[in-house]
């Protein structure tokens, strides 16, 4: 019963808003009676209120607004001029409408308030019928009559009128259907009540379709005290979406700040281990991080809407479709209270419409076919939503004829979408995926319901846009299950951070199926494509650095990391050089200038303040098809090109000219090329510029501006220098100094004074030069 209360509340909030608007508009209209825009707006208000109130069974209100609509409709078609007399009546009817709405708010229905609308209705009818055009009076009656008659009438009128009339036509049809449905349902309900009284509560919690809701308000309102209804209405505030978006952006900033704070704390902890203030800092950092997370959840929640907003329109759609197609189909909805971010709720509607239409048209069979297959005459479509971790899953199940993988393969072959070889290699699941290809349709003929091969392609694009995954499963003859897995929110997402050479990228975790570490030998090349055999699947492989043209600065080892990404129904293995970890990231746009860069969905700012790009998985998959690099060959190819000792460059970092000279003298017999730097900052700049390809570094510890330890630490931050020999040459000899050297990543530790031969041999050893 709660959902009815909710709908009622929504209706009232909306209606009062509309009425505020209509008052202003009407006043303006009186002074400006020719303004069509204004008239249209007022007409729409009456129309909307009428639609909603008839849905909620407020017959009195419906009747009133219906007559208002008639008058206004004529006015906006210039068949009736708005004279002050007419205006008086219209205004009076608006007041009446307001009174009725207040009545609904207070009593929960439009009868108890005791307003008689007969008089005003008659006057409205008089206005509308006292018209010069003789054909129109029948129009209002026609609405109550059948659809066909209205159609006939409209044919005689011009095109604009047809489009306008069809509004009413639809309206009339809704009314008629609802009434019929109500009757039907009331009967069924009564029958059910008698049979199994216990079942009613169950039915209430999982409403089977729209119809049980329609008669409900009465029953509900009768039992609910009037006060409660009124109180509940005032407990909600309507807030502009923009404000919520702004709030969400601010929270995004806060999350980034939090990430940064945690990172800084880690650094500080390392440096000042055991200090008193660390504990305090830790407390502050963790409490801020908890509050930020809570705040983020709270704000996210304000943006959440129950998926019922989308689901609610389907019962009618299925009903109409089943009538149109001559099939008996029942729609069962569950989990409509599951909540989703507003932006996603808006996007999810279209794909669901297409899927359900498809299920009705292609899934569920004709009654005869169903009988032959020993199935109940009535087909069943289940629409289910539930949470799964950070995702919401929407499941659409039908008990229809299911998908036949073989027929799909043949059809795709006929249309030239796949080659014969591909068809043979295709698993059943992959074959089901074919239905999402643009232009693919299994329908023998194009109906106005489906069969153009567009719908499912739309589904795929929309779901991909939401970073969602589609999973199709089917059993021939038994039915089909389509599962949509969609992230809860779009602004802040979980991501997997990966490294490609020196660059880092974030992959939306929703698209990551798994990560594996594989030996290079397991990569095969078939038809110029790189593939990986993983368990019983064969996956295409691509190197991230090839897709994004990352500068190759170091070679990988014998094994490599593969991130398996999946989107909608396809999969791809992406080779990366490092896996950094999972992180919560905030998606930021790269601005107008860099919008829509292929393969990049946006950017985020990491804890260290750097910008990391977020991969657009759908685009990446497309781009991967164009990449033709023999991965295995290029990995094995990476042998060193250094042939003579002078190709080796050794960076000598010391602030004393004499010390540098001693070191260089000692290395002279080796024949390597020395490069000098007088302090850490200078050395780091030389390394960063990439001008020289440094093979080893000799580092003094005591230096101005940046000391040797810091320098070593900085150098080690670059993954291409992970294995670069760093040799400390220093007069600091204590054990703790040596340990510090090891900690920051020094490879060797030479204490001054040293013999030239010793230095020479250490350098030789580290450069792997022959004796």
């Amino acid at each position, binding site marked *: 019963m709660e959902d009815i209360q909710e709908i009622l509340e929504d209706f009232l909030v909306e209606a009062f808003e509309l009425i505020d608007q209509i008052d202003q508009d009407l006043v303006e209209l009186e002074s400006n009676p020719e303004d069509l825009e204004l008239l249209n707006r007022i007409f729409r208000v009456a129309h909307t209120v009428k639609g909603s109130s008839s849905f909620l069974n407020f017959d009195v209100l419906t009747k009133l607004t219906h007559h208002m609509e008639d008058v206004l409709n004529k006015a906006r078609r210039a068949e009736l001029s708005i004279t002050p007399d007419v205006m008086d009546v219209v205004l009076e009817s608006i007041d009446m409408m307001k009174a009725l709405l207040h009545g609904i708010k207070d009593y929960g229905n439009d009868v108890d308030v005791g307003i008689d609308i007969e008089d005003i209705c008659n006057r409205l009818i008089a206005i509308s019928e006292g018209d010069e055009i003789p054909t129109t009076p029948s129009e209002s009656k026609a609405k109550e009559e059948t659809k066909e008659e209205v159609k006939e009438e409209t044919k005689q009128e011009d095109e604009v009128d047809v489009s306008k009339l069809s509004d009413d036509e639809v309206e009339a049809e809704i009314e008629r259907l609802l009434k019929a449905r109500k009757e039907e349902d009331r009967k069924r309900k009564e029958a059910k009540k008698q049979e199994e009284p216990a079942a009613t509560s169950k039915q209430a919690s999982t409403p089977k379709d729209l119809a049980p809701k329609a008669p409900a308000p009465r029953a509900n309102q009768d039992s609910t005290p009037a006060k409660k209804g009124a109180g509940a209405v005032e407990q909600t505030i309507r807030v502009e979406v923009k404000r919520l978006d702004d709030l969400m952006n601010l929270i995004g*900033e806060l999350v*980034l700040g939090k990430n940064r704070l945690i990172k800084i704390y880690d650094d500080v902890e390392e440096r000042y281990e055991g200090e008193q203030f660390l504990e305090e800092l830790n407390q502050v950092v963790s409490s801020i991080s908890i509050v930020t997370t809570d705040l983020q959840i709270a704000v996210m929640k304000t943006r959440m809407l129950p998926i019922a907003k989308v689901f609610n329109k389907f019962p009618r759609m299925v009903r109409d479709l089943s009538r149109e197609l001559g099939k008996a189909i029942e729609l069962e909805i569950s989990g409509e209270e599951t909540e989703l971010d507003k932006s996603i709720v808006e996007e999810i509607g279209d794909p669901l419409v297409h899927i359900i239409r498809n299920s009705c048209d292609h899934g569920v069979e004709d009654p005869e076919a169903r009988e032959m297959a020993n199935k109940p005459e009535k087909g069943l479509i289940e629409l289910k939503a539930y949470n799964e971790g950070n995702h919401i899953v929407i499941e659409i199940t039908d008990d229809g004829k299911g998908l036949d993988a073989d027929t799909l393969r043949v059809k795709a072959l006929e249309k030239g979408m796949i080659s014969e070889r591909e068809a043979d290699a295709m698993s059943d699941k992959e074959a089901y995926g074919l239905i999402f290809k643009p232009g693919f349709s299994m329908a023998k003929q194009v109906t106005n319901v489906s069969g153009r091969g567009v719908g499912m392609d739309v589904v795929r694009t929309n779901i991909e846009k939401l970073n969602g995954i589609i999973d199709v499963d089917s059993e021939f003859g038994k039915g089909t299950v389509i599962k949509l897995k969609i992230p809860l929110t779009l602004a802040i997402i979980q991501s997997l951070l990966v490294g490609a050479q020196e*660059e880092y990228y974030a992959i939306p975790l929703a698209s990551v199926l798994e990560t594996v570490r594989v030996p290079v030998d397991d990569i095969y090349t078939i038809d110029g494509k790189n593939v990986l055999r993983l368990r019983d699947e064969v996956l295409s492989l691509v190197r991230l650095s090839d*897709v*994004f*043209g*990352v500068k190759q600065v170091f070679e990988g080892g014998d094994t490599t990391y593969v991130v398996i990404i999946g989107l909608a129904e396809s999969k791809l293995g992406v080779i990366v050089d490092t896996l950094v970890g999972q992180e919560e990231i905030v998606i*930021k*746009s*790269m*601005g*107008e*200038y*860099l*919008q829509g*860069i*292929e*393969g*990049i969905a946006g*950017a985020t*700012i990491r804890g260290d*303040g*750097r*910008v*990391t*790009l977020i991969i657009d998985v759908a685009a990446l998959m497309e781009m991967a098809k164009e990449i033709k690099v023999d991965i295995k060959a290029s990995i094995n190819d990476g042998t060193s090109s250094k042939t003579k000792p002078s190709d080796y460059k050794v960076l000598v970092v010391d602030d004393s000219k004499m010390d540098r000279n001693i070191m260089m003298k000692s290395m002279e017999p080796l024949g390597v090329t020395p490069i000098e730097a007088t302090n850490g900052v200078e050395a780091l700049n030389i390394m960063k*510029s990439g001008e020289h390809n440094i093979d080893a570094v000799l580092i003094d510890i005591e230096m101005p501006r940046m000391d040797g330890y810091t320098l070593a630490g900085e150098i080690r931050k670059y993954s291409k220098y992970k294995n670069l020999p760093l040799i400390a040459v220093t007069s600091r000899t204590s054990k703790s100094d040596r340990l510090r050297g090891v900690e920051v990543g020094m490879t060797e530790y030479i204490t001054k004074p040293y013999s030239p031969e010793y230095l020479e041999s250490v350098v030789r050893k580290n450069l792997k030069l022959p004796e």
Partner: protein
Amino acid sequence: MEDRLNKIINKQQKQLSEPDIKSTEEVMQLVGFIVSDEEYAIPMLNIQEIIKPIEYTRVPSVPDYVLGVFNLRGNVIPLIDLRRKFSLDVSKQSEDARYIVMKGQNSIAGFVIDRLTEAIRIRKDRIDPAPETLHKDKGMIYGIGKRDDSILTILRVESLLKRDF
């Protein structure tokens, strides 16, 4: 009372219908900078801020003059190398290099320049339109400012900020 109101309204309307009556005497405020060896200037009002070079992240599949994006206090801003954009000699970045963050109608970007020179005030009547022959820059030049001892290429920020790939 009514008369006075009318007077004011009339005055306002007059101002509206006869704009820039004094534009020849108007002064334009510019910021001058060096790219490679050439001096350029842009209107001061288009500058959001000028910062020292910071780390940036490369963006794939863009022309080489788009260096990437950088983090400006939580905003992700594109970074464009004017030397490459103008096909000038790309030497090493000097100590004086700066990022000028320029903002236009609805986009914003940082531009790498070699050195700032000075803030310049120049009368509008001393600015000539760009020579017709400079076609290849497609309106990137707003005009040529004549100064006592030199001439100044004034850039049009809107077209600098327009994506042309």
